[in-house]
């Protein structure tokens, strides 16, 4: 990025273990890096390397294990360790998911779907209150990729996110790929979904790749973060930006990890898309 034509959107990449050494050694030009909190929550060399990265980059901490949707309440030890990590790397953003992973003392290591009911809303809001209180800051809540809905859900997902923001002061992390995957799998309207998230609550956008599979004769989209961002997801990204303006954007890639240069190229594509979209809106 050259001075004089700054991109209106700050674009980061998800930093995964195989790229860490290269990032430390080559210091690529990227606005910020997002790491999965759970990979750094134990002591040891991983944490030392994160401290080195912190010297050159702003960090966004993305939790995948807090299980904000769990009816049993949060794991206080995990929250304590997360707090220590937040203190250590003073992240620009902290985020988690609208999902659950803990039940009966078992951690299922997936972002499992909630029934969207008044009861669940109260539980998730209470857990977010506890987390924000413990961490001493706002967190952003990401919409999950979903493969099923519960029959007794009575609230649409974007309205559920909006209600959480009203009740707890949390923000939203709008994962545009997840919106596309969920809406395609469950027969929902993507435009309607995106327009229902209050603009002022969106603090970050995620972009990633998905794949299409045939299971029992049914086509499903799987949110596997194993490829480039798909064209319809770029389309939705433009739609969100046109509506809400510049928001920090992250490109994620987790499986079949490409060379760092490819991931940085996707980040440049996101910055370019954002610039064009926002200029087009400004030009009317």
């Amino acid at each position, binding site marked *: 990025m050259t001075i004089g034509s700054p991109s209106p959107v700050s674009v980061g990449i998800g930093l995964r273990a195989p790229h860490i050494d290269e990032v430390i050694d080559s210091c690529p030009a990227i606005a910020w890096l997002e790491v999965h909190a759970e990979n750094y929550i134990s002591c040891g060399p991983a944490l030392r390397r994160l401290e080195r990265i912190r010297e050159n980059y702003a960090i966004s901490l993305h939790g995948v294990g807090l299980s904000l949707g769990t009816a049993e309440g949060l794991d206080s030890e995990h929250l304590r360790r997360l707090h220590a990590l937040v203190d250590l790397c003073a992240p620009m953003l902290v985020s988690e998911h609208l999902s659950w992973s803990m*039940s009966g003392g078992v951690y299922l290591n997936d972002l*499992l779907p909630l029934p969207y009911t008044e009861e669940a809303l109260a539980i998730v809001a209470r857990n977010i209150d506890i987390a924000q209180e413990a961490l001493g800051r706002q967190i952003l809540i990401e919409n999950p990729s979903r493969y*099923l809905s*519960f*029959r007794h859900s009575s609230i649409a997902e974007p309205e559920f996110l909006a209600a959480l923001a009203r009740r707890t002061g949390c923000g939203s992390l709008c994962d545009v790929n997840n919106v596309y995957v969920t809406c395609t799998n469950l027969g929902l309207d993507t435009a309607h979904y995106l327009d229902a998230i209050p603009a002022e609550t969106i603090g970050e956008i995620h972009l990633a790749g998905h794949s299409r599979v045939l299971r029992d004769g049914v086509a499903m989209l799987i949110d596997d973060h194993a490829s480039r961002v798909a064209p319809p997801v770029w389309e939705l990204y433009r739609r969100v930006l046109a509506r809400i303006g510049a928001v920090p954007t992250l490109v994620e890639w987790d499986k079949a990890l490409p060379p760092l240069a490819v991931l940085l190229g996707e980040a440049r594509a996101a910055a370019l898309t954002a610039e064009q979209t926002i200029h087009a809106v400004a030009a009317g």
Partner: protein
Amino acid sequence: MPLPLDEVQAVMRRALLDGETGALVPLIEGRELAETQLAIYRNNVFASLTEVLRGTFPAICRLVDDRFFAYAAHEFIRRHPPQRPCLAEYGAEFADFLAGFPPCRELPYIADVARLEWFLNAAVTAGDTAPLTPSALAAIAPEEAPRVVLRFDPSLGFLASPWPIDRIWEANRPGGDDGAAIELAAGGVHLEIRRRDGAVVFQSLDRATFAFRQALGEGETLETASARALGVNAEFDLTGAFSDLFREAVVTGFEIAEVPSL
């Protein structure tokens, strides 16, 4: 009345782990697709946790074939699912599980190789501590010396096996020579595993030194640890063994145990 959330989650947990989907399917929109949709979540759970186990137990992966590992991991995950979100700490029971897993009966050493890999994994994430210099012990009165209890580097682990698991592990690590002939009757090993200067290493100890260090590592007094070492080898050089602990930067602190009341 719909089920309360904690029950929905318990029902879904059982559907994912044990395949008991009967109570969950009626709760899902468009039931005819429910099993297909659930299978995606179930696959996410088992595939991601199997990947974690592959990362923690790479030599076990090579000792058995890939499909067998996936099968063993699946059974393990069902019986011992993680209890915490920190997956670097998942797999503590895997070695014991393999020891009691009937299909592994032909590989009697496999559980000890898994124990070694678990120690190596634990050493990676153990906390950082600064070693103690021997001068710190200068203030100890001679009559207190037998009651000294040392604190060891938290990455330290001790593992004894009747099998040459160090050589089995070497041959089965990535890039290792898995065609190397290993004489299983070559006898056992007494290993000390630790992290030093950021790298996890292990060394083979003689039986008396192993007994000495393992006892100290378990928080026994110098007197007890010495007695154990001398029980193994009456000629054991206690002074040399004690100074080796500092030369190898094993000790990070100490205290004096209370005099046992009679």
